[in-house]
């Protein structure tokens, strides 16, 4: 049994390619659980970060520094009454959140957390991601229609129009990244997510810097479009609470409502992953070609452990700073335990980093590599997650016509222009 597990840890291809459906199922379950936890963490982080932007504390009561707040919320949502309006179309109302959820989760099939740390690698990876994530529109528009109420209907139409509008610019930006993948000796590019990262590795440059500033502009187009695509501020027209109360999910309540939230956050992570994969070198650590020496390799492999060590230190400081009243005792203990947990993880990661420092093909080394890949990928995605929060704290909301105008009259021409310029430059260079 340990051998079995170890052999897969050392695998060089994704389980999908290897055709091992059992291990693929394991990956699927891990990713499902991981994304759910990430959404919860994101929820907590968003509330805390937003609160600190706004000079308040955010959740502080449930668990130390509100760490258990997402769990409390989940429990509350489970217990809340599930209201389906009498006028609503019961079946469609039921199925709508499921559509969104299926769409935003299925794309994780091809997200490459590492060269072999993905469920599957498809020849049409990026096409699949764009296509499936565009299906989320259907869930939203159907949800608004099923509610049979004005605000959800307007919200649904708005957000679907918004999503399809920005999908155009998004697709064009993606094409210009795909163009770059074919700038190699064989002249053949790829749509595979893993292939795209490997192309960046081969060419020795993140595509965001390729043909500067063309790559950067394409990336910027994508980064803007992805905010609109996920209905986040400043493009959160769909659920503009000051206009449409809650947009397309106004009539949804309880757990069913939380499914929409889950889908939205999962989609945020998914589109950020696309951006990271296409332009930011995916799982690659910084300067993989410049700083190639084994020493550098070792130093960078310490990062995951050090990050957790830092988090543990923050948690310990938080424990120390808590008021020394008996009222806070449970919370102090909780935070201390949490800090210890983080510290333990940090220790574990550091041990693995040291054990796997020899760049051979031993299982420990492969395992260490895997952790590095996932770490750098998640770190890059986390930066985007933070940006999402930052946007929300800073900017007012666009009006719907302005949003559409930007989508069709600004983003689309720029994306087209960048695409054509990239192609021309590409032909000239080669």
């Amino acid at each position: 049994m340990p051998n079995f597990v170890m052999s897969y840890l050392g695998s060089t291809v994704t389980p999908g390619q290897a055709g091992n459906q059992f291990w693929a199922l394991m990956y699927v379950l891990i990713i499902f659980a991981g994304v759910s936890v990430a959404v919860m963490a994101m929820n907590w982080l968003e509330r805390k970060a937003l609160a600190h932007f706004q000079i308040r504390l955010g959740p502080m009561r449930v668990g130390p520094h509100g760490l258990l707040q997402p769990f409390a919320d989940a429990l509350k949502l489970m217990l809340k009454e599930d209201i389906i309006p009498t006028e609503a179309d019961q079946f469609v109302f039921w199925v709508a959140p499921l559509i969104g959820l299926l769409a935003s989760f299925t794309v994780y099939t091809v997200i490459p957390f590492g060269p072999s740390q993905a469920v599957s690698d498809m020849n049409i990876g990026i096409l699949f991601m764009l296509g499936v994530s565009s299906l989320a529109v259907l869930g939203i528009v159907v949800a608004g229609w099923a509610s049979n109420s004005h605000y959800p209907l307007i919200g649904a139409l708005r957000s679907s129009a918004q999503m399809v509008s920005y999908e155009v610019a998004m697709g064009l930006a993606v094409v210009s990244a795909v163009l770059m993948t074919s700038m190699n000796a064989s002249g053949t590019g790829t749509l595979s997510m893993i292939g795209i990262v490997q192309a960046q590795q081969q060419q020795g440059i993140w595509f965001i810097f390729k043909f500067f500033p063309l790559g950067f502009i394409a990336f910027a187009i994508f980064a803007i479009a992805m905010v609109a695509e996920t209905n986040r501020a400043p493009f959160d027209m769909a659920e503009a609470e000051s206009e449409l109360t809650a947009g397309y999910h106004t009539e949804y309540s309880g757990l069913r409502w939380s499914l929409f939230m889950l889908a939205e956050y999962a989609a945020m992570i998914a589109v950020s992953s696309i951006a990271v994969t296409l332009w930011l070198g995916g799982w690659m650590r910084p300067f993989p070609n410049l700083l190639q020496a084994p020493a550098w390799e070792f130093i960078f492999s310490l990062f995951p452990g050090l990050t957790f060590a830092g988090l543990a230190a923050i948690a310990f400081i938080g424990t120390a700073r808590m008021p020394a009243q008996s009222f806070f005792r449970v919370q102090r203990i909780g935070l201390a335990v949490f800090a210890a947990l983080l510290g333990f993880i940090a220790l574990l990661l550091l041990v693995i980093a040291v054990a796997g420092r020899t760049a051979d093909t031993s299982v420990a080394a492969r395992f260490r590599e895997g952790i590095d890949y996932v770490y750098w990928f998640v770190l890059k995605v986390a930066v985007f997650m933070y940006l999402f929060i930052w946007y929300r704290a800073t900017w007012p909301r666009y009006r719907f016509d302005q949003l559409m105008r930007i989508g069709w009259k600004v983003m689309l021409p720029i994306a087209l222009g960048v695409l054509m310029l990239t192609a021309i430059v590409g032909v000239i260079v080669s």
Partner: protein
Amino acid sequence: MPQNYVPIFLFLAVVGILIPFTLAIASIIRTQSPNRVKLMPYECGIDPYDSARGRYTIRFYIVAILFVVFDVETVFLFPWAVKFKALGVFGLIEMLVFLGILIVGYVWIWKKGALEWV
């Protein structure tokens, strides 16, 4: 089914089983006490004047059809992009002609104001 597409269905199955399962669990433990006002469509506490299933504005239709057109165009671009270097100048000109024709249409609808929302 080629082996590396099977995980898609695994993913669909996992989500499609786990989520309804959660909903079912929740439906057992949650309270349920509906009344007429609760089940009314929300419109700020006032009974709506009419059903929301009326006809909404035509502009969304224009957006959707433009989206389909540009979507198809993007789909054409993908295979070109992966072979782009091998196709060379010839492929570039091909694609510029293709895009050029579409850009003519795009400029036309811009001029006609179909991209204006109001």
